[in-house]
Structures are given as C-alpha cells and as structure tokens.
C-alpha cells in the first residue's frame, strides 16, 4: 500500500499583494516503510508539500491520500508525526512532559497497547536520564532528539521532518543522520525528510524527490543506490560521490 499518494496537488497562497503558486500539479506516491528525502532550492514548496500531507494546509486543487484515507483522518488517528526545524518544544515542560504532550491533547489519552512509552522513546533517541531537564538546559541537537521522540509517541506510521537538522553543526548533524537511519530501521516508519543539503539527501533517502521552484513542481525522482545498512563511511565511496554529483547537476537546473 502507498503511505502517501498525491495526485495533481496544487497549492496557491493569496497574500495581500500577489498570488503565489507554491505547488503546481505535484503527483507522487510514497511506499509504506520507505525513506524519501525532498531536495530543492528554497521557496520551491518543500515545506508546503509536508504541510499538505499533515493536513495543515488545504490544497487548492488535486487530492491527497494518506494510508488509503484522507489526510484529515490520518491526522485525527495520529498516524502522522511532524518534526519542525526549530524543535518547537514547550519551554516550561520537562523533556518527559514534552514527549507526553500528544497524550494530553486531541482526545488521545492512552497509548495503544505495545507502543513505546515516553521513557522508551527517549532511550531510543539517546536521551535516557534527561527526562527531568527543561529544554533551555539542552543543546540544539538534544532538543531535536526530544522533538523526534515526541513525534514518535503513539507509533505514527508516517514521520514528516522539515529540515530538522538544518540549524545544527555538521558533527551533530552527521551523528543524528546515522541515528535517524537506525530509528527508521527499528520502527519501520515511513519517513519524508526535507533538506537542502545534497549529502544529507543522498545519505538518508532511498529516493530523492527533487522539486523545482516558481512554481513548485516535481523535477525528478532520483533513486539512491547504496548498500544497506548505510554508514557514514560510505560517504567517502566513489558510488556515493557519483550520486551526490548527479543530484548537484539536477539541482542546478531546478
């Protein structure tokens, strides 16, 4: 089954002075359990596409199916986890209470039997022992780990990540990239990951969806052929370098 299916999705924003076509006629299908990265120049509609899938933005045309139903139903069923660029933690809540926020709103007070608890998720993202800390006591990378744990609470089948590591230094970003792949393998979640780093897109994605700007549209879907499981060392191999170079060449035409 397709986790996400967009058919001819068009999104227009009407601001006071002009109308912006953020997405024009976008059609994609994302296999369940796969890892798709979205790459493109800024303003090409990457965030908008994730927001359409998460039912934050309504498309002006076309249709979106999520797990065979509407985006609205998937959101209400908590099938979608969203990770924002700036972590969006609530600063007055401890790390544990931030991760447990999804259980306090939206009428979902209990976890499905068998799904991971907040403590287990914090251990999964490498933050065991930090449950009581407040967000301002954490580094940027740790805050982003908390927000990943929060997005995973309740076991969503789709994880949407909008430049989650964009504001982090390269060392932290590399480490989190590797850990994200491990989390993806352990949870089997479908991941859509927006980035504007060519290396990140090639290292994480099984496929890279390349978008072109003005108006935002699909430029190309590039499959990445690397041996699994991937490791950071592979980024030095000729195969990786060649595929990154190809992405760069396509990106220049976007």
């Amino acid at each position, binding site marked *: 089954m397709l986790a996400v299916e967009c058919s001819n999705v068009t999104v227009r924003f009407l601001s006071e002075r002009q109308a912006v076509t953020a997405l024009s006629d976008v059609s994609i299908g994302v296999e369940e359990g796969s890892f798709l990265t979205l790459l493109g120049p800024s303003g090409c509609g990457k965030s908008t596409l994730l927001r359409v899938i998460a039912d934050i933005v309504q498309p002006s045309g076309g249709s979106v199916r999520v797990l065979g139903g509407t985006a609205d139903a998937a959101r209400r069923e908590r099938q979608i986890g969203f990770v924002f660029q700036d972590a*969006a933690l609530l600063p007055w809540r401890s790390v544990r209470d931030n991760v447990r926020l999804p259980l306090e*709103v*939206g009428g979902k007070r209990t976890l499905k039997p068998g799904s991971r608890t907040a403590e287990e998720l914090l251990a999964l993202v490498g933050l065991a022992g930090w449950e009581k800390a407040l967000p*301002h006591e954490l580094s940027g990378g740790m805050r982003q780990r908390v927000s990943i744990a929060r997005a995973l609470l309740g076991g969503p089948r789709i994880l949407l990540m909008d430049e989650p590591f964009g504001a982090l230094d390269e060392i932290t970003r590399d480490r989190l990239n590797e850990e994200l792949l491990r989390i993806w393998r352990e949870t089997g979640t479908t991941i859509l990951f927006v980035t504007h780093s060519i290396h990140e897109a090639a290292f994480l994605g099984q496929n890279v969806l390349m978008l072109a700007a003005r108006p935002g549209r699909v430029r190309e879907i590039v499959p990445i052929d690397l041996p699994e499981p991937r490791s950071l060392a592979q980024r030095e191999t000729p195969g990786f370098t060649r595929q990154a170079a190809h992405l760069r060449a396509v990106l220049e035409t976007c």
Partner: protein
Amino acid sequence: MDAHAPHIEALDDDAAWRVAQRRLAWQRRLLPLVGAGSLLFVWWALIEFLHVKPFIAPSPVVVLTTLIAKFPMLMDNLRPTAIEALCGFVLGNVAAIATATVFVHRKIVEQAFFPVAVLINSIPIVAKAPILVLLLGNGLSPKIAIAGIICFFPTLVNMVRGLESVSPQAMELMHVLSASKSEVFFKLRLQTSLPFLFSSLKIAASTATVGAIVGEWIGSQEGIGALIIQATYNFDAALLYATVLCGSFFSVSFFLVIRLIERAVVRWDAAAA
C-alpha cells in the same frame, strides 16, 4: 620543576578567582547602601548648615523621629490604602485577563476595542485618576475601582500580546495533534503569556498603589492620600515625608512579592530567572 606544578598553580588561580568574585558580590550589595547613606548625610548637612526651615524640607533625623512617634497613626492610614490597592489590583487584573481571553478568541471584538484600549492605556495615570475620582465619588469602593481601572489597561494590552506571541510552529504542532481551542489555550497560550503578564503585574503593583492614593486626594478622611493632603496643607513637612515613605514601602514590598511569585512560576524564561 615537577610535572604537577602548573596544575597546582591553576588550582591556586581558581581559588583566587573565587575570592575575587566573592568580593565583587559583596561590593555589589554594599555599594548601594553606601550611596544611599552618603546622600542622606548630604541631605542632613544641607538642612543643618543652610538653616532650611523645617516646613520647607525636614532633616532626615526629624523624619525618622516623626515616623517612630506617629507610627500607629501612619499604619492606621496605610491599612485602607493597602486594601484599596490590593482589591483594585486583583479585580483590575482578573478583568483584564478575562477580556484578553475574549479578544484572542473573538477577533472581531479585538479589532473593534483593542485600539481603544491601547489609546486609553497611553493616557498618563495622573491625568486619568482625577477623571475617575469625579466619575466615581467618595467611599472605599470608588478607590478600589480607580486602582482596578488603572491596572486594567496595561495588563489587557500586555496579556493580548502575550497570548498572541505563540510561535507559528507551536500552533502547527497543536494542529497536527488535533488539539481543541481550549487545549491550545490552556497548554500553550497561557504559559506563553506568563512572562508578559508578570511584567505588567509588576507595573500594576505600583500603579494600583498610586491609583488608591490619588483616589484619596479628594474628599477622603483617611488613607495615605488623605494624610498627604492634610500634611501639605498644614505645612507639616516631616509628616508628609514620613507618609510618603510608608506609601513607598508598601508599593516596593508589593512589587517584590510579585517578583518572587514570578521567579517561582516562570522558571523557564532566561530573562526572568
């Protein structure tokens, strides 16, 4: 030379640094007292050597003896002022928070009345108070009303800004979690607004006192405001100064209590902690 020497030296530096820090901390605490003390001395010396008449400006010694001699009478007058200020503070701020909540949920009401509130808020208290005194008349409750109305506008303006300063990403997060409007309010907006609320509550602590005092200026028999007027008309400068000291003491304590509550409640905000 032994290999450990630099390490030991570093420890010594550490200890010296800590001693220096402690001295600086004491300096910060003591110097304001020294400054206040020397100003008091200059005040006393000017009055003493220039032979200033006591009804124009009293010497600090006379103010202190008056304060001690008339302490029970001063406290009897502070009590009604304190009650008016506290009640006005509570009523005015509760009303402001409630109104801000309505504004945030009913945009049309906000668009109609928020600019008016901002405008009224920009009128100085000293100009607002006499209008309210004329409007509301004598007795205890008009003074509470004055103190309350004076607190109301700054808190309303700040609270609306605070409730609306929620980050767009946090709002999108709440949407993804299918949170209801009241969940967004109680889990997100309210906490986001607290630093804004406290900064206006700290101002309100002193403006409520000013409101109560100004309210007592016209046709009142007791209270700090009435005492200020009586002392001025009787050229009793020592009593006037002692009265003003009592009023200031109350308003500073009121401010400090709010500050303490803020510290206990808003622990996540680096600027407030």
